[in-house]
């Protein structure tokens, strides 16, 4: 069964790019446009990896990560943040919330795939 990934970003073009890239590599991808949507999806189905942007309306990425870690099924799931290069404190905050790691924006599809293949075996 293909590994499934939850991609969360309020920017439709980013979601599309991430989704397209990952699907092309054989992953199953679910999209959400903010933390609230993502949390609802996560509660109804299990995914192998969550990739989330940080700045989103309704619930930002760091709060999402914190909420996900509190779900029993997501205590060890890799959760990755999409962050900009200057966001050092964001990385710290993310880690404090339980993030696994981060991908630096802007990134190209190959970097995305490489990172993803590392966390999902």
């Amino acid at each position: 069964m293909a590994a499934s990934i939850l991609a969360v970003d309020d920017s439709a073009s980013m979601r599309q790019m991430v989704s397209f890239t990952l699907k092309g590599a054989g992953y199953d991808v679910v999209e959400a446009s903010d933390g609230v949507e993502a949390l609802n999806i996560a509660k109804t189905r299990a995914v192998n990896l969550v990739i989330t942007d940080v700045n989103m309306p309704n619930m930002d990425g760091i709060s999402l990560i914190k909420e996900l870690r509190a779900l029993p099924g997501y205590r060890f799931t890799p959760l990755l943040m999409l962050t900009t290069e200057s966001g050092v404190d964001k990385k710290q905050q993310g880690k404090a919330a339980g993030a696994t790691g981060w991908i630096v924006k802007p990134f190209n599809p190959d970097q995305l795939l490489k990172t993803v293949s590392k966390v999902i075996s």
Partner: protein
Amino acid sequence: MSIDMAQFHQVFFEESFEGLDVMENGLLNMDPGEIDPEEINSIFRAAHSIKGGSGTFGFTNVSEFTHVMETLLDEMRDGRRPVTGEAVNVLLASVDVLREMLTAAQDGGEPDEERVKEQHAELTRVLANADAPDGPAADAGHAAVAGGEFTQVEPVGWKIVFRPHQHLLRTGNDPLRIIRELGELGELAVICDTSELPPLNDLEPEDSYLSWELHLNEPVAKEEIDEIFEWIEDDCDFAVIPLLPEGYESATPTTATAEQAAVVADEAPPAPALKVLDPPPERRVSEDRRKEDERRKPSPGGKSGAGGSSIRVDTGKIDSLINMVGELVITQSMLGMLGEEFSMDKLARLREGLGQLERHTRELQESVMQIRMLPISFTFSRFPRLVHDLSNKLGKKIELEMSGENTEVDKTVIEKIGDPLVHLVRNSVDHGIEMPHERVAAGKPETGTVRLSAEHRGGNIVIEITDDGKGLARDRILQKGIQRGLVREEENLSDKQIFELIFQPGFSTAEQVSDVSGRGVGMDVVRRNINELGGSIEIDSEQGRGSTITIRLPLTLAILDGQSICVGGEIYIVPLASIIESIQVRKDMLRRVAGKGETFKLRDEYLPIVRMNEVFGIEEPKATEIEDGIVVVVEAGGSKCGLFVDDLLGQQQVVIKSLEANFGRVEGISGATILGDGSVALIMDIPGVIRLSRSNAPVSHPEMSMTA
């Protein structure tokens, strides 16, 4: 795998332009006194998205420019920088430049480099002022900076000691992955230390107790190893020790535990100070005007793609359309069947079927019209910015109130009403609202109000522009009218009629033609544009109190409720909306008035009679005596008159066909329609007819009376 990113570009551009609108509206609404944190956040997010997306999709110039805006906004939302009017204005101007850059990127062109550089400098200047750089130095980057000493000799490999903290697994990281990645760098020998492992009873399966010593026999760069540990440096202890060739002493290990890393980061040099540039010279007024005009490329209704105009439609509307077409098909086949074998006893069913046909067709017609209807907010949306910029430039304090933005109007109206409205709002701001000190002196509040509203009233859309300014200078307008020979001194004109004068071409009582308005080319064009939409415009004003401009537009542009009349052998359609009443006039009600010609008395007014046969050059009208025909009293633009015609034929809805597109522009005629019997009827343009009658010349146009 190479992916063509271009397929995501269109979506990126669409969402970026939407983001720009969010930013602009947010910035316009920002009141430096009361900052709404959510508002700032949404402005920040919009900039952040544009920056991220443009970087990802390769529009680096956009990304760099947006980055500076984002930095400014970030400081504002964190409270590290106060929100000043100046900063807001700089950001607004930056939004304009960004819009230009994105448009250029979308069209494959180049933005104005000078302007970009200029604005970039402006942003940098604002950032440099009152810049409070606290918090960790930017670009601290990941922590594994080699704080220790490098050995002089190149290592042949590395010894890595890796001890995950107990909670590591709960970050979603997996030690095995780390080891696997290290293994990808080269030959790896692994020794596991299980000394920390507790007895099974005490074992917490979610905790990590193991640690490893790994020997990597590969002269890779230390950075490659550090990168693997990047995510987990706080969640483990690890040491990376160079392995030297045989015979060398190993130097002090370069460690990189969390605390060391923090120390290194603090010692990193602070971010380079931003260059403080001299503030740019004051912008010239005309420059701004040009920029403002360039800024808004008209975008019809929905989001148009690269070519052709398009519209976004609610799928619900489409669905109900499909349903109706379905009904129509059923009715049609039923009638078809009836027609196949018709006999008189089926007449009732035929009638019923035809009735259904009429109903379904009408419903379909209404629904299709609905599709082209868009909320007028598409046109209104430019006004907050316009009023803001204009009032700033003129040094006036003006508040814009808008209502009825949800009122739906036809797409063509949206496209064509914009320019006239801009002209009218500019007039209110420029000539209507007084300078703050003048207002206070007149006992008015310092801040003037301009109100823009739209609503459905009767069968029309009514748009009103109201201001509480100084109103129209009635006497000055009258003087000018007399000067120009438009009005005779003796004529006793009502205020409304006097105000109508400003719609004459070249009419302007503004003392100086300001850059903004007052060149006098405006109002007649405004009226013509509105007439072309089948509408009318009126002004009402009270000196010292303010003015109200009322624009009436028909709800549907292509269909008209009309009264058919005949003159001679010709049939004409008079728009029902212009008809006040139709009467039979007796000879004794007629009166000849100097300067007005034939008039008749209607209640307490004397209205001129317009003999349609004379205006349209019809040679043999049926009725020449006033009693033999009918007088249709019509009104347009504040003046009334009676159209003398042979007979009234009936009222019906007609489909307007453009005469201009198919033949040419004819004064007094606004379009044509095809009647039930296939013949062509011309639709009268009442204001045009009135003008024609005043000029006392019959319409001289070849082939005026047309035969289909």
